[in-house]
């Protein structure tokens, strides 16, 4: 890893933290105000790509673990890793990695549709696929209960997925960070 990558990882870990400090923002046409933290998970993957995005979220979790109260609602410390919502935390690095991997796959023809696919698959499906079974374990409830109670957050997460995609496309044009290995050109002439 180059120092540039270290800086990206550290800055996006900090960005996810700051998005947790931003007070919940009301979204037009949606009853519950949403917090911006999972938006940061999706953005880390969409902007930095799989490896750096996943690492940024691992670093974020390390920062939470060493006692920075940077989860939404001012939570932090080791206690959140045993709490009832811990499953969501563990899913974030994987989610950022998957968002990044899907973004890299479609980077050459990147547009809003591909971005939506990456953010909804990685940022919503992956998060719940990991968080729901883990919640079942931590909170000792059945899979079905855990599933239905989690579903209340899905509409908010879809809103965030759309937001992240719009932002990701804007950043793709303005300040592309993901670099793909140069495609080998066929030798002509």
């Amino acid at each position, binding site marked *: *890893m180059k*120092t*540039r990558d*270290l*800086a*990206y990882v*550290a*800055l*996006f*870990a*900090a*960005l996810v*933290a*700051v*998005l947790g*400090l*931003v007070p919940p*923002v*009301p*979204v037009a046409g949606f009853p519950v105000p949403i917090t*911006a933290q999972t*938006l940061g998970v999706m953005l880390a993957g969409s*902007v930095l790509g799989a490896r750096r995005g996943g690492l940024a979220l691992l*670093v*974020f979790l*390390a*920062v939470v*673990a*060493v*006692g*920075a*109260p*940077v989860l939404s*609602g*001012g*939570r*932090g*410390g*080791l*206690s*959140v*890793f*045993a*709490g*009832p*919502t811990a499953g969501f935390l563990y899913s974030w690095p994987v989610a950022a990695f998957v968002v990044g991997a899907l973004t890299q796959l479609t980077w050459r023809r990147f547009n809003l549709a591909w971005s939506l696919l990456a953010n909804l698959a990685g940022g919503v499906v992956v998060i719940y696929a990991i968080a729901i079974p883990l919640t079942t374990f*931590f*909170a*000792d*409830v*059945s899979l079905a*209960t855990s599933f239905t*109670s989690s579903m209340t957050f899905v509409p908010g997460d879809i809103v965030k997925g759309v*937001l992240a995609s*719009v*932002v990701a496309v*804007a*950043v793709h044009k*303005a*300040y592309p960070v993901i670099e793909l290995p140069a495609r080998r050109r066929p030798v002509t002439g």
Partner: protein
Amino acid sequence: MTLALYHPVPSPVHRAPAGLKLLVLAALGVLLFVVPRLYLVGGALAGVLAVGLGLGGLPVRVLWAQVRPVLIWLAALFVVHLLVTDAATGALAVSRLLTLVLAAAVVTATSRVTELVDVVERICSPLRWVGVRPARIGLVIAMTLRFIPLIAERAARIREAQAARGGARRLTVLVVPLLVQVLQMAHTTAEALDARGADDEPLPRRRRRDR
């Protein structure tokens, strides 16, 4: 902006090595999930409170501040258990989580951030064999802790500027300029790190002393 849950008081719990405290915490977590007995969980809860409030000299409000955000979840969990299983299982699940949350809060409040970062570095030291330098992990965590107030300040500035122009309080209009600023910061940070030789291979210890 204070960015630590550490609560400095002179006590034996504070002086205990952070690695040891983390090890005890991890062992407690495994124990409570492997042996789900209410008396064991109750004993552990009393023990954690005794260590935190008694031996560690932490004020009640420090622990309360950590537990309060979780309470609503615990209450909801208990209600779910009343509906789906029974009160005994519910009491066990709730008290187990409460105990672990409190134990972790005690570790966090009695250990300095720098000590915990050292422990993270030590835990990551086996990664040396796959080409990761543990010192860099410490560096990245330290950088992140420094960047949080910096980015928060940028975010506040963007909000102020938009409020002054009578702009809407929408998330997109905050996030796009913030992201661009963050990417620019990454650029300057990387240059600053390179200028200080952060990318160089560390010299072998013996040779460094000779210079």
